[in-house]
């Protein structure tokens, strides 16, 4: 059994998106309840990590000060959305996003100090759509991108591999690292001609020095396990085989599940487990088991909870 960290904090529920918004606090509540109810004291086998407010300078390693201030101001003025109706906010949204990042940075520290082997971060709001100067698609701060830069700046990690299996392409993460050869960004998602946000085409491979360090596997609507397994083997496994990441970060979105009507991809519960088993396997092979998985999407609440439980059990191992 590995030492698996679990970042969760009730304050992540304070980011209220209003009725009928799919990115709701209920998502995290369902995950927490599922873990509480799980057999064999699953929750007690995890190393619990609480949130902490991030220092602003760590947000600034990815985002513009302008974006940070606008987000903070919009919340303190009581605005209901930021830049687009998708991005609902409340007075607590900014603080919630700061807490999520702080908790993730602590998680990184714990892993790099060897106090935990890997971790799952059940955070809100999600992050992979957020760009340097743009919030979008329910995302404000790019959690996974900040974690990657923090690993580089504080822990001097030279090669960081990001795997993004949210059903939507992580345009923010790709954009932030497109010319950076120290971060390999891999994403598998529904084809951008059909699904949000319309990026993540096969020909997007990074730019400048980072060319070849971005890799996208678009999947056509209606497809499922067979196509995912084939593409992951052909693209991701091969890429990490030569890139050999020292740390793996996961943008874990669970909205490609067949029961999640946010997309037209039809993954089974088993396939999500297969994906995570392989990511953990690659971490064992290349990165001394170091994986931090960060929650992105997943909107079929009951299914999400079950998928996250499986995901965490795989991180724990036997």
């Amino acid at each position, binding site marked *: 059994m590995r030492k698996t960290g679990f970042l969760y904090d009730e304050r992540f529920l304070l980011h209220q998106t209003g009725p009928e918004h*799919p990115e709701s606090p209920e998502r995290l509540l369902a995950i927490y309840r599922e873990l509480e109810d799980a057999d064999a004291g699953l929750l007690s086998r995890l190393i619990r990590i609480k949130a902490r407010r991030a220092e602003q300078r760590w947000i600034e390693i990815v985002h513009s000060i302008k974006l940070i201030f606008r987000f903070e101001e919009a919340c303190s003025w009581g605005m209901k959305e930021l830049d687009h*109706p998708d991005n609902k906010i409340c007075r607590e949204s900014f603080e919630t996003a700061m807490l999520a990042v702080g908790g993730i940075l602590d998680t990184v520290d714990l892993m790099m100090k060897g106090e935990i082997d890997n971790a799952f971060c059940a955070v809100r709001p999600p992050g992979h759509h957020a760009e340097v100067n743009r919030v*979008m698609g329910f995302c404000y701060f790019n959690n996974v991108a900040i974690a990657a830069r923090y690993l580089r700046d504080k822990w001097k990690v030279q090669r960081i591999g990001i795997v993004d299996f949210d059903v*939507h392409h992580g345009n923010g993460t790709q954009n932030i690292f497109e010319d950076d050869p120290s971060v390999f960004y891999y994403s598998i998602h529904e084809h951008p001609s059909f*699904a*949000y946000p319309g990026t993540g085409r096969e020909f997007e491979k990074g730019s400048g020095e980072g060319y070849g360090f971005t890799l996208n596997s678009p999947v056509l609507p209606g497809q499922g396990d067979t196509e995912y397994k084939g593409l992951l083997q052909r693209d991701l496994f091969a890429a990490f085989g030569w890139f050999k990441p020292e740390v793996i970060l996961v943008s874990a979105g669970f909205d490609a599940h067949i029961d999640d*009507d946010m997309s037209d991809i039809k993954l089974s519960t088993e396939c999500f487990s297969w994906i995570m088993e392989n990511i953990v396997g690659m971490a064992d092979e290349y990165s001394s088991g170091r994986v931090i998985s960060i929650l992105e999407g997943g909107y079929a609440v009951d299914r999400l909870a079950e998928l996250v439980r499986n995901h965490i059990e795989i991180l724990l191992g036997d």
Partner: protein
Amino acid sequence: MFIDKSMTRKVITIRPEAGIIEAREKMDKHNIRHLPVVDEDNNVLGIISDRDIRSALPSVFSASLEEPAERERILGLTVGDVMTEDMITFTPHDTLTDALLMMHKTKKGAFPIVDWDGKLKGIISIRDLIRAFINVMGLDQPGTLLCLVAEDKVGQMKRIVDAITEEGISIGSILTARHWDEGKRAVFPYLLTVNVTRVKRKLQDMGYTLLDPMEWSLEGLPVI
């Protein structure tokens, strides 16, 4: 959709007395394939393309460049000698579809845009049209494509647009196409949101079928 909103205004031009080697260098430098040819008063005299220049030069496999006389002749060729004088032009108030259809018909890659006095105002090329098309389809903004099947009768589009608008969702574009079933139409609204779950359910409740995009293929269409 008038040309003047989409044309390139800062036009790289050339004089008729310039040599064709200079013209080619200018194209290479600016990564373009067409130069309008103008006189000192900015009157358009013709257009020269990279293909016009290539046709005027001997093949790289021929030895003729080695011969001093042939070399002299080529170096002496001017833009005026090889340009197309009998060119197609548009005015800024012609439309993008005029230019699109003319390109399709003539297989030309660019047209000079001139005012009523024949002075150069801009150029419209395939690249400008591609950019305009991306813009019209809303593809430069993040969004989700819905694929619906509707009865091919009056008022369907209004119902669909109303339903989407009631959800507070902006529409990037809507394309429609013939469906393989008689009396049906496929409708593709491009919605500027990630949040499509509710609107999808709503449209289904209204009786629209969500088309499985993978069942949608050109082979399924009736032959004209």
